[in-house]
């Protein structure tokens, strides 16, 4: 057994419970959603036709051609894609792993350097797996799930379809890696005062960035470039570039992290 395998095993032991709970929750929601839709015989297209027919009848009966029925939006059955719900794993991984695997690895006699490299390896593999799962889920979601339920998927929301299967997969991978390394930075140095400053800045940045109009434009631009980028190359560059900054910060915490 080599050290990387040990780290994978320790990571799995620490994540096991969270992963099973998440998968169980997703499964329950999928099944519940499916059965409810079946029981109600719900079909979005059918519903729209039914409503249109009903409105036509009412118009005939009342002779009022302006009559219409408004369907409140919350009545529409819209869910987040199950494959996207799996993305809750991104913050979970990057919170639990730095908090719960550092000491066991050190206790076995691991060095901080190797532990950190291994941790990045775990993040890279996780980002790839989650991107792959969502990419493979996406055609299934369009062709099967959408026949009975309305769903959202990041691929569609951020318009990553435009880059094709491989492009969407790459965009997801780098963005997931960005999220993982960001959370990892925040949870790698909880004992360090620099980390507290980082947290304060981050917490303060959200209201300030959104409330000051002149800043708001830049914040919006930033998120557009990060998520809605029309150039795949610049999107990958931005996501990976920022990831490198988070990684460098996390390493500064980890190399001085005490047991």
């Amino acid at each position, binding site marked *: 057994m080599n050290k990387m395998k040990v780290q994978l095993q320790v990571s799995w*032991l620490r994540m*096991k419970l969270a992963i099973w709970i998440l998968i169980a929750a997703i499964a329950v929601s999928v099944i519940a959603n499916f059965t409810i839709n079946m029981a109600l015989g719900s079909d979005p297209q059918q519903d729209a036709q039914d409503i249109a027919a009903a409105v036509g009848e009412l118009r005939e009966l009342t002779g009022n051609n302006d009559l219409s029925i408004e369907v409140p939006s919350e009545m529409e059955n819209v869910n987040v894609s199950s494959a996207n719900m799996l993305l809750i794993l991104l913050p979970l991984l990057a919170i639990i792993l730095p908090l719960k695997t550092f000491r066991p690895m*050190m206790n076995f006699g691991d060095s901080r350097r190797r532990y950190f490299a291994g941790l990045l390896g775990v993040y890279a593999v996780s980002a790839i797996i989650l991107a792959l799962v969502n990419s493979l889920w996406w055609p299934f979601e369009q062709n099967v799930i959408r026949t009975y339920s309305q769903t959202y998927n990041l691929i569609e929301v951020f318009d990553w379809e435009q880059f094709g299967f491989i492009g969407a997969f790459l965009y997801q991978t780098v963005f997931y890696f960005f999220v993982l390394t960001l959370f990892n930075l925040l949870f790698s140095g909880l004992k360090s005062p620099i980390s507290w400053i980082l947290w304060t800045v981050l917490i303060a940045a959200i209201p300030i960035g959104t409330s000051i109009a002149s800043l708001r434009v830049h914040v919006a631009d930033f998120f557009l470039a990060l998520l809605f980028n029309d150039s795949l190359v610049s999107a990958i560059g931005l996501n990976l570039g920022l990831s490198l900054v988070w990684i460098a910060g996390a390493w500064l915490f980890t190399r001085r992290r005490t047991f």
Partner: protein
Amino acid sequence: MSSVLEVRQLSKSYGRTDAVDSLNMDLVEHTIYGLLGRNGAGKTTFLNMITGGIFPDGGEITVHGSPLKKGDVPAQTCYIREKNFYPGNARVRDVLQMASAFHPDWDAKFASKLLGTFKLNPRKKMRHLSRGMESMVGNLIGLASRAPLTIFDEPVLGLDVLMRERFYRTLIEDYAEHPRTILLSTHLIDEIATVVEQVFIMESGSILMQEEVEQIRERAHLVSGLGAVLDTFVQGRRVIHGERYGNAGMAIVYGDLTENDRKIAESQGLTVEGVPLQKFFAYLIEEGQTDE
């Protein structure tokens, strides 16, 4: 004898209290050492520093000839902590497998033999083990690692007498065949008295005494008799502890007594006896405290 660990002027304080204070220590190869001291004497802080877990405020640490830089961990070292951090939902056999990856001298055959010796069920999960069994998993790893520097912090915590003996016997047996440097940190002196060659007595972050155990047995004396006579006899000698009752008194004296010294003592009606080790250590630590 080549040096395995060299510690110079090591210091660490938490707030205003000095956990470790200008501590020096030299360990050479193929020796079993004891680090003795009460709970809170600074033993664990010291061990965490020499194994790179926490960082000293000052001083130098050299392990196997290379200086230990801040953030590094020493090579060829196995440190078994008092409180282990093996994942609770891992099985005993998995923990052993995992530990083996970090120790190039690991002996898998020996490890599986020790499972039997220490009565550990390899299929049990760590969180289902008693405190003593948990200690034993750590001890097993420490022994099977055969690391040139192996450190045990309170290895017999939670163990019954039988298992303590079994651990120390196994340690001695394996050490005889595979000599290495072993540092046993404990507050229980009785059992390690014959196992270790040298002891460091630690109190309030400092080493009070570093000595071969056999030397201590030779040098520690309990002298008793009439108070006045006793006073003249112990003058100029290192008195660790003294007590008076009426005209009589006793003193724990540390140092070599020549044949002549003994004759003089006897002729003056003083009795000279040996002192059991743990009694001696207890007095020594008390003395160290009153010095403060």
